């Protein structure tokens, strides 16, 4: 496999959510979500039900992938921060720990300066959590200690999905 399997456990999920909840408050943001670079939504907080977060996640990853491709062409490693300014709402998109994308949606109740400042702090915390998560997953895999639910699936289970 080209990449290690992306997994999420309860413990880290809670830690991650508490970091982005705090960021939501401190940055006065409307919505914050975390996406992996392949476009899968990891978690979201704030007014998430008002937005189609699944689509946003996929497009965010596409956006990061496209600008990453542009960066390479001009000899940069990647653009680690993107900012999109709208009439009302703005998006601050940044890469955390090289692997995960942090998206902050905010309006005029906040400011780019504030968001940038708070994101920096939260990013450091998230980088540590995701680093630990990766290690944990690798160790579990090595020791064969996976509580992986799919080990026992049957053909019937699979067929039932499509019935």
């Amino acid at each position, binding site marked *: *496999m*080209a*990449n*290690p*399997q*992306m*997994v*999420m*456990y*309860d413990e*880290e*999920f*809670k830690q991650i959510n508490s970091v982005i909840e705090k960021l939501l408050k401190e940055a006065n943001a409307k919505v914050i979500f975390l996406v*992996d*670079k*392949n*476009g*899968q939504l*990891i978690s979201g907080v704030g007014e998430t039900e008002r937005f*189609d977060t*699944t*689509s946003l996640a*996929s*497009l965010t990853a*596409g956006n990061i*992938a*496209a600008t*990453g*491709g542009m960066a390479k062409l001009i000899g940069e490693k990647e653009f680690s921060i993107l900012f999109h300014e709208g009439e009302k709402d703005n998006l601050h998109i940044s890469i955390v720990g090289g692997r995960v994308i942090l998206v902050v949606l905010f309006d005029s109740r906040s400011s780019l300066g504030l968001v940038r400042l708070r994101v920096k702090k939260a990013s450091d915390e998230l980088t540590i959590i995701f680093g630990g998560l990766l290690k944990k997953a690798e160790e579990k895999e090595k020791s064969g200690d*996976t*509580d*992986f*639910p*799919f*080990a*026992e*699936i049957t053909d019937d*289970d*699979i067929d*039932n*999905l*499509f019935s």
Partner: protein
Amino acid sequence: MSFINYASREINCKIVYYGPGLCGKTTNLQFVYQKTAPDAKGKMISLATETERTLFFDFLPLALGEIRGFKTRFHLYTVPGQVFYDASRKLILKGVDGVVFVADSQEERMDANIESLENLRVNLQEQGYELDKLPFVVQYNKRDLPSVLPVDNLRKELNPTNVPDFEACATTGEGVFETLKAVAKLILVDLKQGK
């Protein structure tokens, strides 16, 4: 690479539809979208040109149901088939769990099919994948048209390793779900084996 979330009990897998320009990749997704119950699908996103050619990708999230208490989601993507969009195709292959190669069965598109399949191999290799090790199925599309090649000819060129393959007419939907099911199944079997 699939994403397993033990906290929310979800598994997400990424399926990419690949193939030459106009072979019917977007039409496959459109049919799946039309025929899937509202609660099992998200919005279909198409980043396309004004003439409806895929510019970056189409995206369709499906939540088919649960296996052993885990919500199983498939994220379907298409690549832009036109030759000059190669940089975009590479990006979309990142993190892929399974590939559908959609071939255009018309005789005059045979060269384009071969070129696209070769391009798929090369682009996967660049990402560190090997096509022969990935869940992979082939679809011979546009079987309704008059100038199609016999399936045996197509198979010889496009499916030498004998992966599951299907005849289809994406506009009417024939073969569309069979193709999707087959690749989804291969992905789940891979997951089961802990690959």
